[in-house]
């Protein structure tokens, strides 16, 4: 066990996979000499050489597409997309090729790619540097989509992603790169199971990635008022661990889902639908979504308005527990009487 930042934990995971398996190669923009704009690949090129840690031309489709070709020839490429908002030029290769090749070839060709994407906001960045595009990928059959909330999760989930024979989109909460935590490099994870990070009895609060810390803060604040929240860290965005969520809701009867991405056609929508299908009869109140608004990610000066926060989560907790007149906080489409 040692204490390290999430960025250092990711670096350790990449280093350990590069050392453990000669077929692992890293490719991305500025990941070599510079060590990545977030230094996640720091010193790796010096230690493993420019053919294992490849500084790519500035072309995201090229990064993903050549990785498909490398995977065809038995390599396990780990692609870095520099920022969330830069992934779209690579979207075609991801959804039309990476996600479909195993299916297209009836299992003959495997695509063991990992695509690392720093995501999320709250860092005062310029446009295209703070987005949460996970739902686009979760909607695509043939991809696994995962994220991490702590240095330990980051380490073990990235190693599991690289070792997986499925393509994995690995979303890294860039706002948490510099938070520290204990990391056990012997620990292993699967890519499917959610974690109950805090047990509680009154409502289930589902979060992932950068929102897990806020969810835990909300649970502490709620406990001051005598409310016991169970916090679930989803970890896998696709597939969603519906069993863990439903088991919790069967006990608590209430559900709040939070993430930074906008709410429409979102991961929250999917989690809530799963609960309605799996244990509708256990719900004591309508589930709540606490998400980014359905706007483009705003300029930095407005991002605190956009992002879900402690107050918005606690407000949703109050609503689901019927602690206030929920109409005064209801979404705009609900008619509010004068």
């Amino acid at each position, binding site marked *: 066990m040692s204490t390290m930042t999430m960025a250092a934990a990711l670096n350790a995971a990449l280093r350990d996979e590069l050392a453990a398996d000669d077929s692992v190669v890293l490719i991305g923009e500025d990941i070599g000499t510079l060590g990545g704009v977030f230094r996640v690949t720091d010193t790796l090129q010096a230690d493993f050489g420019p053919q294992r840690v490849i500084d790519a031309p500035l*072309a995201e*489709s090229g990064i993903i597409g*050549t990785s498909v070709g490398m995977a065809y020839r038995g*390599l396990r490429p780990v692609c870095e997309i520099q920022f969330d908002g830069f992934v779209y030029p690579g979207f075609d290769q991801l959804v039309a090729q990476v996600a479909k090749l195993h299916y297209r070839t009836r299992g003959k060709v495997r695509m063991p790619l990992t695509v690392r994407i720093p995501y999320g906001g709250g860092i005062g960045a310029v446009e295209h540097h703070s987005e949460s595009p996970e739902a686009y990928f979760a909607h695509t*059959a043939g991809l696994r989509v995962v994220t991490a909330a702590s240095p330990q999760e980051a380490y073990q989930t990235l190693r599991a992603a690289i070792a997986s024979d499925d393509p994995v989109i690995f979303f890294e909460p860039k706002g948490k790169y510099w938070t520290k935590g204990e990391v056990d490099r012997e620990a292993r994870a699967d890519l499917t199971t959610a974690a109950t990070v805090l047990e509680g009895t009154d409502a289930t609060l589902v979060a992932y990635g950068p929102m897990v810390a806020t969810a835990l803060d909300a649970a502490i604040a709620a406990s001051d008022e005598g409310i016991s929240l169970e916090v679930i860290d989803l970890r896998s965005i696709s597939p969603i661990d519906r069993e863990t969520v439903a088991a919790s809701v069967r006990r608590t009867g209430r559900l709040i889902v939070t993430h930074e991405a906008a709410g429409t056609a979102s991961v929250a929508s999917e989690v809530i639908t799963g609960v309605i299908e799996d244990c509708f009869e256990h719900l004591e109140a309508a589930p709540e979504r606490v998400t980014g608004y359905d706007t483009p990610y705003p300029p930095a000066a407005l991002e605190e308005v956009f992002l879900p926060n402690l107050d918005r989560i606690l407000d949703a907790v109050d609503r689901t527990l019927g602690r206030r007149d929920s109409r005064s906080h209801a979404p705009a489409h609900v008619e509010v009487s004068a």
Partner: protein
Amino acid sequence: MSTTMSPPDPSLVEGLDEPLQVLTADGERRSHELLDPHLTDIDDQTLANLFIDMSVVRRIDEEAVALQRQGELGLWPPLLGQEAAQIGLVRVLRDDDFLFPSYREHALAWCRGVAAEEMLSVWRGTTYTGWDPYERRMATPQIIIGAQTLHAAGYAMAARFAGADEIAVTCFGDGAMSQGDTNEAMVFASAFHAPVLFFCQNNQYAISEPVSVQTPVPIALRPTGFGIPALRVDGNDVLAVRAATRIATEHIRSGKGPMFIEAVTYRMGPHTTSDDPKRYRDQAELDKWSRRCPVTRLEKHLQSTGAPVDSIRAEAKTRSDEVARSLRSAITAMSPPEPQTLFDHVLTTGDATLQRQRRHWEQLEESLLPEAS
């Protein structure tokens, strides 16, 4: 990485004025300084084999069009007119060279040992792949224009990193020259010195759009801007394509990085069986290119060499008839896949959500069965 820049070297490209050619449209063999040294193995038997290859793939193509018209296939993209380009290429590649084709490279699949019915199964809608890409060293037909060029560049990068001497070959058309992926593939191949052959069959049309919509300059000039040498060759001259491919593969295999071949040819048929080329090109143009037919050209050449043309023609016909007959019976007997295979191979391991959906489907199917009396 080099930090000095240089303008594209005009000597990087051959054939800009006139596509490189050794067989005239009348089948007459002309000497060619660049190509001849790469055709020293040409004898009557080799010519006969090339003629038989081209005849058989043309016949598979005709049979596929007929099967589509009869409702046995959903769609078919004919290769008619492009036989020389494809056979000239594939017959001089090594068995371990890996091919990343588009959807019209039926001759490549045929020469890699794919049965005609395996090829057509994709177009019948029973599967997305007719063969195992590793067994045939050939990826499944790519439908997204240009996407496979990047796969070839990446494959070649991996081959080079491994110190292997096999090369990757990617086929695409004139339309793909406008795709970002094709241009990015040339960037990556050039930057990493990847052993990849870019093989562009310029068949003059991307569905209805003439090549002038894609580029105002000869296609072969464009790779030179990426530092990739190019040959512009008469794609209806099987010997010229063969020689050009040898020049390119020797260059690539010797570690000099990627090369590009533009095979100037003509799609004599429609884009697919759903297309109506009469809406965008006239009969005079088709007639002009029909006079340059690659199969007729080789046949005329065989005549001129004094080869036993009648018996070669007869053998080609026997082989073609045989392939067509067995193709027809295999295709019409081909049953659809079992319905539950819909759910197979989405991921390499199970996924609870998908398993639940499959279970629901199975229960529904079972509930719809008539009750046993």
